[in-house]
């Protein structure tokens, strides 16, 4: 798949879908992100790889506002996430502003995090009704459509407890799609699945990638998937981007020593 043209639906006037500048994040004495600069073009599909503890999940979490950066700025769809315009400069944003920008971001988690007290359909309907103000009928119809597109229309009235891991993750993806985010974040979404269930989730991800409507950032260990789908692969280690480039380079012909050793270790089993 080739990199698509910047999609004006996602970002105005070709502004980057996601732009991080100088982002620092430390947990205690552990500096997880160090002056990170990152650009993601609208509609781009970015895969982030790297050893555990390297901070790659933190990148996603900081964009999704699950963690607050200690320093730096993040822009989503041309708008600052954590800052508001103030005179000629910026000041820290109020919660309302953050929430407003956050409506363009969605995330799918490694451990699904479906709401166990609701059916699959209700999980998908909740945000459109409560956050985006859709009517219940509208939300239900759209929800059934989405469930159908991930192959789970028959499970609409089942609760997460009745579903397999692969099914749960597909519902989780549908739930996130229902909010029509411009940027979708996927945090190791197949790592918690039994091997035989990974394929069904990857198929759904490929479908989303093919549609090209949202920008996708994925943290994953699935190198084959990355090779097929990614426009750009980032190798991340010790809080910084070690190498960035198309999959043909980073995965097949890495320039950096750290990338080579990481990929070697991953391949060994």
């Amino acid at each position, binding site marked *: 798949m080739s990199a698509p043209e910047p999609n004006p639906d996602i970002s105005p006037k070709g502004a980057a879908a996601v732009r991080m500048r100088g982002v620092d994040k430390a947990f205690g004495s552990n500096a997880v992100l160090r002056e990170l600069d990152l650009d993601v073009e609208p509609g781009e599909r970015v895969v982030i790889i790297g050893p555990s503890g390297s901070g790659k999940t933190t990148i996603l979490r900081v964009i*999704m506002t699950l963690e607050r950066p200690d320093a730096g700025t993040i822009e989503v769809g041309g708008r600052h996430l954590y800052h508001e315009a103030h005179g000629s400069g910026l000041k820290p944003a109020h919660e309302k502003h953050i929430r407003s920008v*956050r409506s363009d971001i969605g*995330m799918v988690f490694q451990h699904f995090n*479906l*709401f166990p*007290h609701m059916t699959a359909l209700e999980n998908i309907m909740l945000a459109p009704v409560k956050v985006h103000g859709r009517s219940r009928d509208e939300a239900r119809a759209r929800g059934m459509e989405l469930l159908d597109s991930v192959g789970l229309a028959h499970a609409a009235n089942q609760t997460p407890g009745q579903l397999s891991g692969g099914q749960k993750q597909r519902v989780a993806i549908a739930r996130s799609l229902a909010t029509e985010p411009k940027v979708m974040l996927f945090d190791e979404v197949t790592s918690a699945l039994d091997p035989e269930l990974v394929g069904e989730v990857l198929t759904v991800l490929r479908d989303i990638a093919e549609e090209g409507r949202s920008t996708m950032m994925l943290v994953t260990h699935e190198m084959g998937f990355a090779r097929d789908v990614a426009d750009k692969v980032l190798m991340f280690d010790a809080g910084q981007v070690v190498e960035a480039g198309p999959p043909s380079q980073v995965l097949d012909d890495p320039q950096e020593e750290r990338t080579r050793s990481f990929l070697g270790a991953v391949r060994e089993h």
Partner: protein
Amino acid sequence: MDSWLLAPHQYELLADGAWITIQILVYAFILGVLLSLAVGVARLSDRQWVRGLAFGYVEIARGISSIILLFIIAIAVPILFDVNQASLVVLGSVALGLNMGGYGAEIVRGSIQAIPRGQTEASIALNLSPTQRLRHVVLPQAMRIILPPMGNLTIEILKGTALVSLIGLTDIMAATRTIRNQRLVDASGADVTVVFVNALVIYFVLAQIINGLFRLAEWRLEKRYQGGEAEVEAATREPIPGLTK
């Protein structure tokens, strides 16, 4: 001991007393539950003064003796604030409700903290507001954990209602003492045991009823997690390449 039973008119007294007891229990329970939810959530607030106030209330409500609290609210407070002594039922219920709120708040807080963080994170990812998060995601799941200890707490409050006899209300305890004194006068046996065992049995029965109600609530809550049937046999649909066989 002739018989374990009392005379019919004495049972009437006990029944009237039971009515007062149940009333106070219900009012106190309602106040207690409202306080528990509000204060339990407040204990986890982002604002320090809210957290501090909630903490203060919980420590005092849990630390004080119920009978002293009852005396303060029913007797001292009206005089202190120059209010007419309102209905004793109201004052008694308020005292017991305040007491219950302290313990209940800790139950609520503990259960909210027991909900996996992933649930909150998923709600943030869906851009739900903090209130929506609490109402639709966290509290419904917390209910499962709240119900069993809340049931025990309610039984403790039931036992607490006996204290209102000491501020002049004619509940089961007061009725029991009246009957006891009557029997002394009637000389219908120096069998103290009979009267009090009857009273204890009534409380015991009420406690079991409360237990049963809470188990019922727990059972109905479980059903929400059970879900329905799969709609259509997946096998009869066209196989989607790569997705289904």
